[in-house]
C-alpha cells in the first residue's frame, strides 16, 4: 500500500492561513491503514486546527469528511453538491488523491495534508517499511523475493557492495543489507549458481525515468 506521513502542523496551518471555511477530507484506503489520513486522523487534525485557530482568535469553520477513495472518480462524485462551499479542502489522501480531487473539481483549492512517502508494508502495528519502487520490470524471481531496487540503498544488481558489514548496510546499522539477505536465501535453497550469474544493467525506461506512466485495458473501458 501507499504510506504517508502527516505534514508538520505548522506547515499545515500556514497553508490554511488565508482560508476561513475548510474541509478536512480523508480517504478510506491506504492512508487509513497507515494511520495518517482516515476518519480518525481527520477528526484529530480538524480538532487540532479548531483548537489552534480559536486560541489564536482566528474566525473559522472546520468540517470533516472521509470518502472511500480519492483516487477513484466514482467516489469523488459524492462531493459534487458540497465541495464548492469551502474556501479550501485539506486532503489527507496520498498525492494521487490530492491531484485527482483537484482534477475533478477544478474550481476548488485542494491542499495536501500529508507527505506521500513510499509503497510498503505494515511490519508490525505502528511500523511501515518500504518494499517496492514500482520500477515497472520486476526482478523478484531472480533475487529470491527480495527487491534490490528498493531495499539496496544503491539499487545495485550484482551486490553486495563494499558498504555491507555483518549483514547491515553502511547507511544505517538498523538497515539490513538487501544483498546479504538475498545471498542467505540463495544458500538456503542451494541456488548459489543463480547468484554467480552477472546481471546486465537494468533498463530504467519502465521506471520513473521514462516519464509519467499509464496502464490501459481497452476491454474494460465502458
Amino acid at each position, binding site marked *: 500500500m501507499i504510506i504517508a506521513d502527516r505534514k508538520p502542523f505548522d506547515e499545515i496551518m500556514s497553508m490554511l492561513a488565508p482560508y476561513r471555511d475548510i474541509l478536512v477530507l480523508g480517504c478510506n484506503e491506504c492512508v487509513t491503514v497507515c494511520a495518517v489520513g482516515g476518519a480518525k486522523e481527520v477528526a484529530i487534525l480538524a480538532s487540532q486546527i*479548531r*483548537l*489552534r485557530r*480559536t486560541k489564536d482568535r482566528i*474566525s473559522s469553520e472546520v468540517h470533516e469528511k472521509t470518502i472511500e477513495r480519492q483516487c477513484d472518480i466514482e467516489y469523488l462524485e459524492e462531493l459534487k453538491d458540497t465541495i464548492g462551499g469551502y474556501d479550501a479542502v485539506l486532503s489527507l489522501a496520498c498525492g494521487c488523491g490530492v491531484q485527482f480531487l483537484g482534477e475533478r473539481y477544478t474550481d476548488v483549492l485542494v491542499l495536501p495534508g500529508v507527505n506521500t512517502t513510499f509503497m510498503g508494508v505494515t511490519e508490525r502495528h505502528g511500523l511501515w517499511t518500504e518494499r517496492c519502487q514500482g520500477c515497472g520490470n520486476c526482478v523478484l524471481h531472480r533475487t529470491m523475493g527480495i527487491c534490490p531496487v528498493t531495499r539496496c540503498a544503491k539499487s545495485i544488481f550484482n551486490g553486495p557492495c563494499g558498504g555491507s558489514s555483518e549483514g547491515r548496510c553502511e547507511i544505517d546499522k538498523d538497515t539490513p543489507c538487501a544483498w546479504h539477505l538475498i545471498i542467505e536465501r540463495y544458500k538456503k535453497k542451494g541456488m548459489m549458481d543463480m547468484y554467480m550469474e552477472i546481471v546486465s544493467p537494468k533498463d530504467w525506461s519502465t521506471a520513473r525515468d521514462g516519464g509519467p506512466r499509464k496502464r490501459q485495458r481497452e476491454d474494460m473501458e465502458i
Partner: protein
Amino acid sequence: MRISYPTSVKIIKVPCTGRVDIIHILKAFEGGADGIYLVGCLEGDCHYLTGNIRAKKRVKYLKTLLDESGIGGQRVSMYNVSSAEGLRFAEIAKEFTERIKSLGPNPFKLNKIKSTRDSGRGGI
C-alpha cells in the same frame, strides 16, 4: 475512607484506560476542559494485559498534538494507581488540579466564549 478531592475533578468511567482514544481527549478540550488526566491500573496489573501501557503511549503522543494546537501538552497526564490506593488517588487529584490552576483556563474555551460574545456567531 471519606477522603476528599477537589470538586473540579469530574470522573468519566471507562472499562480500561486502553479504551481512551486521542480524539476523546481533544474533544474534551474543545468542550472546555482545562486539563485531563488518565488514571489507570498499575503497570503489569492491566486486566486486559496492556491497556494502560497503550494509554501511556497515547498520552505521550497526545502531548505533542496539544503543544502543536497551542493548548499545551502539560494539560494532560497519565497516572497509575491501584484500586486500594484511595489516598494516592486524592493526592493526584489535588496535585493535578494545582498544576492546571497555575496554567490558567483552557485558552480555547476563553477565546470561544469571547468570539461568540463579540460576533454573535458560533464560529469555530
